[in-house]
């Protein structure tokens, strides 16, 4: 990671170390959101959190395109590589034969998106969720879990977590399940990639520790790794 000047590092010391390099190279974010087609009024409208909740309550699932499916995928990346397209809210697991499994995802909200090349450092089933210090600082409700929230259906990390590393260092970012399945397709998290629990369980069973993860997100802060 590129180092920062002393005064800048001092000014930003309240940020976790893993984010400092990303801030140093941050570009003006150009956040792309999801739109959904309103067939009654024949126009595209914002797929807001409110619209997402309504859709999920009506259909019992997120829109069809966010459902897990095998798609054509032309790439030189080897099978088992994870590609995250934050702009389109898809995660791809590369398969042989120029195909990939495509999953719908939720990504970081404004100012929390990131891009880079990292690896899966470790995996965990029904993980414990411990909010980072800066989350506790900005969200007092998270303080009650400062010693860790046990894994389970109410845990924000959901059924599985894939911890993303740079070398041997935890990046603080995860691919994880969720207790808010309606949020798939939204820019809503603190930077982690969220999937519904069925999808993350499926992905977890297919991915090995050490797998390469490429995160694409236009205009987001660059987290340079690997």
């Amino acid at each position, binding site marked *: 990671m590129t180092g920062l000047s002393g005064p800048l590092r001092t000014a930003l010391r309240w940020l976790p170390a893993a984010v400092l390099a990303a801030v140093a190279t941050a570009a003006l974010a150009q956040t792309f959101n999801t739109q959904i087609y309103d067939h009654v009024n024949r126009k595209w409208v914002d797929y807001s959190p409110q619209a997402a909740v309504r859709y999920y309550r009506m259909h019992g699932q997120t829109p069809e395109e*966010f459902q897990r499916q095998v798609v054509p995928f032309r790439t030189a990346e080897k099978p088992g590589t994870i590609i995250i397209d934050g702009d389109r809210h898809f995660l791809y697991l590369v398969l042989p034969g120029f195909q990939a499994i495509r999953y719908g995802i939720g990504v970081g909200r404004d100012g929390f998106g990131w891009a880079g090349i990292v690896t899966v450092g470790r995996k965990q089933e029904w993980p414990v969720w411990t909010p980072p210090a800066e989350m506790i600082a900005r969200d007092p409700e998270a303080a009650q879990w400062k010693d860790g929230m046990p894994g389970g259906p109410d845990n924000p990390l959901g059924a599985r977590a894939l911890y993303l590393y740079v070398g041997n260092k935890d990046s603080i970012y995860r691919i994880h399940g969720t207790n808010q399945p309606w949020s798939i397709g939204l820019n809503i998290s603190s930077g982690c990639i969220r999937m519904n629990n069925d999808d993350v369980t499926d992905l977890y069973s297919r991915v090995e520790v050490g797998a390469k993860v490429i995160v694409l997100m236009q205009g987001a802060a660059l987290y340079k790794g690997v």
Partner: protein
Amino acid sequence: MNCPKSPVSSSRVAVLIAGLGLSLLAGCNTSAPVQGPAAGAVRSSGATAPTDLQLLCAAEAAEQLQITDGNVLPVSSGPSGGTGYRVNLTFEGGEAVCVIDDDGMVQSIDRI
């Protein structure tokens, strides 16, 4: 419709009006229905290159520019020309621009 200059029977006018109405309805029925996306279809609010095309650009740039660690990252993209895309790439020590067509054929890689 011009008003008749000479008196016409009311029944004849009724037939004319009915015929005109049927003609209009027939015209409506034969016009093609408006096609649009399926209900509940989703899309991104921004236009970026397809994910796999971005990666093809990165792989081609790594080879052409001899990026030893192979870590070339697409950072932005958009439509270019009629059926192609422009993909901006970053790597240790530099940046490049790739133009790729919809078939996945890289048209150019230029270091910037």
